[in-house]
Structures are given as C-alpha cells and as structure tokens.
C-alpha cells in the first residue's frame, strides 16, 4: 500500500538487465495483443483465430467492471 517503491523486488530489479523472469500475465499482454501478426502457413481462418483469441481473453483478461476508465491527458496534442 505504501509508496516505498524501491523496497519492492520487482521494481528494484526491473530495468537493469534483460533475462529477468517476467510475470506470465505481463508477457501475455504483449504476446497476444502485440507482435507483428502475419499469416504463417499454418493459419486458422480469421474467424477461427478470433474465436481462439476471444476464449483466451476470457481466461487472461476478464475485466472487472470497477476498472472502468479512460485515461486522457488534458493537453492531448499527440
């Protein structure tokens, strides 16, 4: 709860070197939503891929309603 962030092992060790153990949930954020998605030779049809992804989403990202929010930077000039 306290903000003594430097006491947390995750924070203390992160960002020093590559090869640190990573949390599966952080990795899945990136591997399922990120990366270049190109059609390899083994392709499930687009609709099927979506189905697979949706069922994965159910496991990895069931969203709790109280998390609702949109971040907006006021002077959004991007």
């Amino acid at each position, binding site marked *: 709860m306290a*903000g*003594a962030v430097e006491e947390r092992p995750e*924070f203390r060790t992160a960002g020093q070197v590559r090869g640190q153990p990573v949390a599966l949930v952080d990795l899945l954020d990136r*591997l399922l939503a*990120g990366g270049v998605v*190109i059609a390899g030779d083994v392709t499930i049809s687009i609709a099927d891929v979506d189905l697979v992804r949706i069922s994965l989403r159910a496991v990895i990202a069931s969203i709790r309603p109280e998390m*609702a929010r949109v971040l907006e930077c006021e002077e959004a000039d991007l």
Partner: protein
Amino acid sequence: MSEADPREPSAATGFYVYGIARDLADEALGDTRGVSDAPVRLVEEDGLIALASPVSLTEFGERGLRENLEDLDWLEATARAHHAVVDAAAAHATVVPLGLVTVYRSEERVRRALRERKEEFTDALERVAGRTEWGVKAYADVRESQSTASAGGEGSSRPGTSYLQRRLVQKNTAEEERRKAMAVAEYVHCQLRDIAVTTRMHRPQDPQLSGEQGWMLLNAAYLVDDTRAQEFRETVTHLARLNPGVRVRVTGPWAPYSFAVEEEPEEEEAWPEP
C-alpha cells in the same frame, strides 16, 4: 484438419518464427532454445533475419493449435520460450517480435515471407531501433464500502436514518478515493507519455493471473528512446514516491512487443463503463 489435409502429415516439421532482426550475429543467441526445446536458427534473406526453430506440425498445426491454445500450461511454456528467444536477440540487435505461434511449413517459406514483407519489416525495425519498451502498472487499494466507517449519526434517535447516512458517507468516501486514485494514475501516465516516443494501453489484467488484489488503474506500455531510459525510470520512481496511495510498478526492458505494429489511434480501446 490435419487428417484431411495432405499438406499437414502428422510427422511433418515446420518452422516457428519468433521475430525479425537485422545485424544479428550467429553466435549472439548462444545456446538459447526455442519452443519444444529446439535450437534456434537464423534464417537470413536479403538483409533481414528470421529467428526460427523447427516444430512438429502435429503440435503446431491447425488442429494442434486449436487445442493447445486453450491449455494454459501449454500457452505459458510457449509464451516463455517465445520470449526467451526474442529477449536474447533483443539484447544484441534490433528485433521486431512476431505474434505468438507464427508457423511456416518450410525454411523456404520463411525466406519467401522475408522477401515479400521486406518493406513492412524494414519499416518496423526503423521505428523501434534504439528504443525500448517499458511497462508501467498502477494499483490502488480502495477500501470496500462496508468496511469500518463509523462516521455519522451513531447516537441518533432514528436508527434507520443514521444507517442510511452512514452508508452515504461510506459511499461518498469510497468514490472520492477512487476518483483521486484515478487522477493519480492519469497524472502518472501523462508524465510518462511526455518522455516516451509513443504509448499503448493494455487491458486491465485478470487478478486470477496477476495475483493482484488491488484495483488496476493503469496497464500501459511506453516506447522510450534509449537515451531517455534513465530519465524515464527516475520519473517513475519519483511519481511513485509522490503518491503513496497508488502502487506503481515498472517492468522491462522489453523487446518492442507492443509497438511492432503501428497502431491506428481509434484502436485504443476505452475500458468499459461500470
């Protein structure tokens, strides 16, 4: 599918491709193994290098994938192997990670993909060169409204009213805490966004997977010039100290998973309304 499709015999071998790199020496990966504990090969074509390893098309064919992708243990093993290869390469060269389970039927097919998509891969490599992805998550431990809160009208002669008043005070307090926590997360994000080249929001994480009991306020990725990495990390530390009610965690350095594809602005999803 595999039984009906002669191109996918059960014993066939394909190639799993982890990412695309350039200027990566053969020995850079050392003894890093890929999925199925297979040795990783560098398939070079016209200046681009695919990080690849052989896989069984029984396991990584269409039918196999359909089943395996639903298996969290298999998914974890594959995701970690994918990451190990990408991460090892990213320590030495610019890498554009590919999505999970990109599989080709032969090395020649991998080469063809490198030729056909040369422009797309080259653009992506340019975009992430000299930059690193960092993750920042923020949580608040907002009290549930039924907790403690002895505020309001204990000695009232009208118990019903005092109960309602008490509930109202509790509700308002909880809402105020949430509002403040959200404002802090917004401030953290906006400060970090100013340092980053670009950002991407990930979805809030499932507490069952993250083990986090707090309310997740922020799950963002930032692509940061390596010359500003130190400033970025110091700013995270500073922001975390500034706001003791909100826990801030940084992860990374990551290969640029979240920035391998240029995101169209409208793709950024609003988190759902309560």
